């Protein structure tokens, strides 16, 4: 808030106008709802995670940190965490660079530019579960067009089992993920690039700076704040990856593509390991809270 606004605010807060509690009346409903849905279940999860509730046994006695010890020994959990991190660190740079490349393509005048942009962002607003379903149609080994196209190029009959073959499941998920979210990066980076000072770019070009020099010294620092936000939003989204994996592989074959989210779902809602899932959920919340708090300090999100 600019300084003059603050002084105005002080004037507004004269005793006559100020009504103590008004500001709390305004926030109360929102905070109550956030606490009901956010805090109360959190406390309950904490309690449950120290008990021994499973599908067979409604054991609410105190089990100490048994469930947390079990997580430490659970290779399936660590596998899921590893897959999740892998999805994030591979998909994120791909989306970022592809998005940046696309943004460069559209930064200057182009006939029909607005229409292209409007069409290119459509994947972003498709429900992720629908885009997962769409890609399972596209990648079907027999009735999907992807294998057909590959066969045209290869000139032979190949049957690639995209959602079953262990070497192909990851590319399949990446395809869907990158297809859906590259336009997100594109849109944000295009907006950031449009805000770069043109005069500065031209001056540098006249001074004989190379394209790379201009990009790293002028463009990149200028678009960085937006880029950081884009990376933060997409990074956190990728960490919770569920829908696309669920539609394409359900975490399979075996547990090969299981993410933290699909793992928790299976444990909690298919195997009904209630207490164990509680411990997992709590662990995720704690880890993510640290990441988010750290990231929010670094990133200027709408100041």
């Amino acid at each position, binding site marked *: 808030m600019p300084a003059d606004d603050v002084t105005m605010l002080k004037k*507004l807060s004269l005793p006559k106008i100020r009504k103590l509690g008004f500001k709390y009346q305004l926030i109360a409903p929102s905070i109550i709802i956030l606490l009901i849905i956010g805090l109360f279940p959190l406390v309950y999860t904490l309690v449950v995670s120290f008990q021994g509730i499973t599908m067979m046994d409604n054991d609410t006695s105190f089990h100490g940190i048994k469930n947390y010890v079990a997580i430490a020994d659970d290779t399936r959990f660590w596998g899921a965490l590893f897959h999740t991190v892998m999805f994030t660190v591979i998909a994120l740079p791909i989306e970022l660079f592809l998005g940046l490349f696309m943004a460069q393509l559209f930064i200057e005048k182009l006939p029909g530019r607005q229409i292209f942009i409007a069409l290119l962002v459509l994947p972003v607003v498709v429900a*992720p579960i629908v885009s997962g379903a769409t890609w399972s149609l596209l990648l079907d080994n027999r009735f999907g067009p992807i294998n057909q196209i590959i066969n045209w190029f290869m000139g032979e009959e190949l049957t690639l089992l995209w959602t079953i073959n262990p070497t192909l499941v990851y590319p399949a998920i990446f395809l869907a993920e990158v297809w859906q979210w590259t336009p997100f990066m594109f849109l944000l980076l295009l907006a950031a690039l449009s805000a770069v000072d043109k005069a500065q770019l031209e001056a540098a070009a006249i001074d004989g700076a190379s394209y790379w020099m201009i990009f790293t010294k002028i463009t990149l620092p200028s678009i960085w704040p937006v880029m950081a936000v884009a990376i933060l939003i997409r990074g956190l989204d990728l960490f919770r990856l569920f829908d696309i994996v669920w539609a394409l592989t359900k975490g399979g074959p075996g547990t090969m593509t299981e993410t933290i989210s699909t793992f928790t779902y299976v444990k909690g809602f298919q195997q009904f390991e209630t207490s164990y899932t509680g411990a997992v959920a709590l662990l995720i919340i704690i880890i993510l809270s640290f990441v988010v708090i750290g990231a929010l300090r670094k990133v200027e999100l709408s100041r």
Partner: protein
Amino acid sequence: MNAKFKKNFKTGLRLAGAVALTILFLFPIYWLFMISFKTADEIYAYPPVWWPESLQFSNYAVLFKDGDAATVGNSLIVAGTSTVFAMLLGTTCAYSIVRFKTGGNHLANWIISQRMIPPIAIVFPVFILYVWFGLVDTYFGLILLYTAFNLPYVIWMMRGYILDIPISLEHAALVDGYTRWQVLWKVIFPMCRAGLFATAIFTFVFAWNDFIFALVLTRTEVATYTVQVTHYFGGQSNFWGKISAMSVLGTLPIFFIVAFMQKYLVRGISLGAVKG
């Protein structure tokens, strides 16, 4: 002349690249829509058919006949109602945070961090809570959760829009004898109409497109269209006609909405970081 030719050539190249990219990115959507108009014979043809013989709507007719299309209605009720609640509550909360610095930066940061926790970690305890109170598979339960899930987004976005309103307007209204509530209702809400509209659209889309909350918290009564789509995936065979038709029913409204609000898109999806 030469320079001009060079420039035109470059634009031509970029145009070709743009067309190629657009085709690449739209092809999956084309395929989804196109399958929904195919007959079963065309869907299960080998090699795949890229263009159906005729437009036929039997895949849609089945959805309406069996009542599956009602899940789109459920999505509408749940997403629509939760959007109204989240907008009303979130905007008043945002106003308090902006004007009175209620809770300071800590509250604002806590609120936005609520948005960033993975939904699966939220929905597990909420499910247990809902089992106690009999809220599983009810409109109320789903609406409450979507309202709560979208509140941080609304508060965060509306905070940005309210910051843009000059405080002198409020001052003038107070001098004219408006009460605080009247200022909120008659000055703030109308002044950030565009922001309200844009934020509401995104809030709606988030709830509309959600899968994981609805998967956990619905059974049959209030199942939304995203849950319904996954019901057609079988162990051995998938009902592709139904998958695609159901997906199109859920996706088409979103495409229309987005087409009308291009100029709000960037600010909306960047959590307000890009004013656009």
